[in-house]
């Protein structure tokens, strides 16, 4: 596996949950090609350069759709980020007076749009996760049934505990009770083999630059073909529809107004192609490293690991809390003295930390990725041992 180049080449990068780094060569090449060779504006104009660029975006969307199990690639929208995708799926479907049920492990990409909607008259019911960050479908069902529910909202995997939520059960509960299921898949896409057609969410937002290994500045949003979702942004979509002052109703155009991030789209397409080929081996690699990391941390006295025990599945991140040393101090020392990159704090997810009892000081999160090696994990474990000794 290729090592990063440049001034940070000696760093032990354990912050893949924030963003994957370095990016795979096919992704870098695709971004460069988009900047150098595919300079046209996709969907705008029919000259050869615009057509080649449109084709590259079309192919990228199809590759991403195939990877994520989306049968009709028109239902998979390119968005500037998972955060924007969450905003579109929430604000485009929920109205004043609606009641929603949401898990307590959500990231601010969901919590904050919901707070805004709540101020405008949305009723929000929160289902508390257990101490491992897991949302219990029985609890969800009870709350969903206690009143008319427009939407059940739940992440696929937690960015704090790595917990994987039981989406299949949640989809059943939502649909049996006339609700839609809206999912934040930021930490799942790429790290898990996501099959949207079998999960059956009505909306699924994904980050392009984390487990998907794409460039920053790109995300994905799946919207079920049956679901009416208001677009958040109005503007140009190219072509002859320019004559109308109204947004077109067709997908993907309705949700992609404005000139898009072509290098981001094609780069993400290249990443999806790579994951289709090598995703299983990346996942196996990550889970070996996670076992090593998890067991190694449990061997160091004084650490508590948030989330599921080592034998249970999780996405490849581990948040840890020491009984006396603050997380931000540990992350600072890891970086300064050992060149180990880890992220301390609340990880934009105060609700989740509150749920698992780490709101007061947060945690140090270590997250592995496709380029992490066993010796990187050893290095981090040695550093942690020295820091707390």
């Amino acid at each position, binding site marked *: 596996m290729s090592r990063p180049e440049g001034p940070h080449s000696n760093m032990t990068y354990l912050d893949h949950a924030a963003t994957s780094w370095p990016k795979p060569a096919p992704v870098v090449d695709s971004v460069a090609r988009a900047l150098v060779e595919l300079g046209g504006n996709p*969907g705008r104009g029919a000259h050869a350069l615009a057509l080649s660029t*449109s084709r590259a975006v*079309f192919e990228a969307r199809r590759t991403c759709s195939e990877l994520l199990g989306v049968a009709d*690639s028109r239902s998979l929208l390119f968005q500037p980020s998972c955060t924007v995708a969450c905003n579109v799926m929430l604000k485009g479907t929920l109205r004043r007076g609606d009641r929603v049920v949401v898990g307590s492990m959500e990231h601010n990409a969901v919590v904050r749009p919901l707070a805004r909607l709540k101020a405008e008259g949305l009723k929000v019911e929160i289902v508390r996760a257990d101490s491992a960050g897991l949302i219990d479908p029985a609890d969800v069902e009870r709350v969903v049934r206690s009143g008319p529910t427009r939407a059940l909202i739940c992440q696929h995997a937690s960015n704090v505990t790595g917990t994987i939520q039981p989406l299949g059960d949640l989809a059943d509960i939502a649909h049996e009770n006339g609700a839609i299921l809206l999912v934040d898949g930021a930490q799942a896409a790429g790290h898990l083999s996501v099959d949207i057609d079998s999960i059956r969410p009505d909306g699924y937002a994904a980050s392009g630059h984390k487990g998907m290994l794409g460039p920053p500045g790109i995300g994905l949003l799946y919207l079920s073909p049956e679901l009416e979702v208001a677009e958040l942004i109005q503007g140009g*979509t190219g072509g*002859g*529809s320019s004559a109308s002052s109204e947004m077109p109703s067709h*997908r993907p*155009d309705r949700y992609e107004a404005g000139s898009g991030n072509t290098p981001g789209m094609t780069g993400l397409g290249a990443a999806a192609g790579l994951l289709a080929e090598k995703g299983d081996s990346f996942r196996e690699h990550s889970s070996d490293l996670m076992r090593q990391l998890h067991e190694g941390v449990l061997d160091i006295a004084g650490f508590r690991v948030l989330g599921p025990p080592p034998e249970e599945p999780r996405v490849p991140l581990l948040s840890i809390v020491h009984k006396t040393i603050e997380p931000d101090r540990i992350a600072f020392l890891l970086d300064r003295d050992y060149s180990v990159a880890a992220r301390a704090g609340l990880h934009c997810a105060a609700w989740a930390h509150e749920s698992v009892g780490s709101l007061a000081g947060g945690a140090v999160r270590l997250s592995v990725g496709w380029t992490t090696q066993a010796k990187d994990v050893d290095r981090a474990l040695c550093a942690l041992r020295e820091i707390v000794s």
Partner: protein
Amino acid sequence: MSAVAAERRTYLVLGFATTHQALDAERVLLECGVTAKLIPAPIELGGALCGIALRVPAEKSEEAENCLSRASLPAEATVRMEDY
């Protein structure tokens, strides 16, 4: 200028709502053995469609339309044109 005027050919031009659909239709047609050319959408298709259209030789019209309807990708509008 060519001394001999080229033979004028008739084409079916197919218009779609989105660039994505036009490109999808191009792909589907190719799978059916019909080579379609992407062209700027002519005004005759009406104003509400995307900026690119597909052009197939007139003698391939039926085959092309059948192929697209089997794939649930029918054109939003079609027009017969000469040498566009």
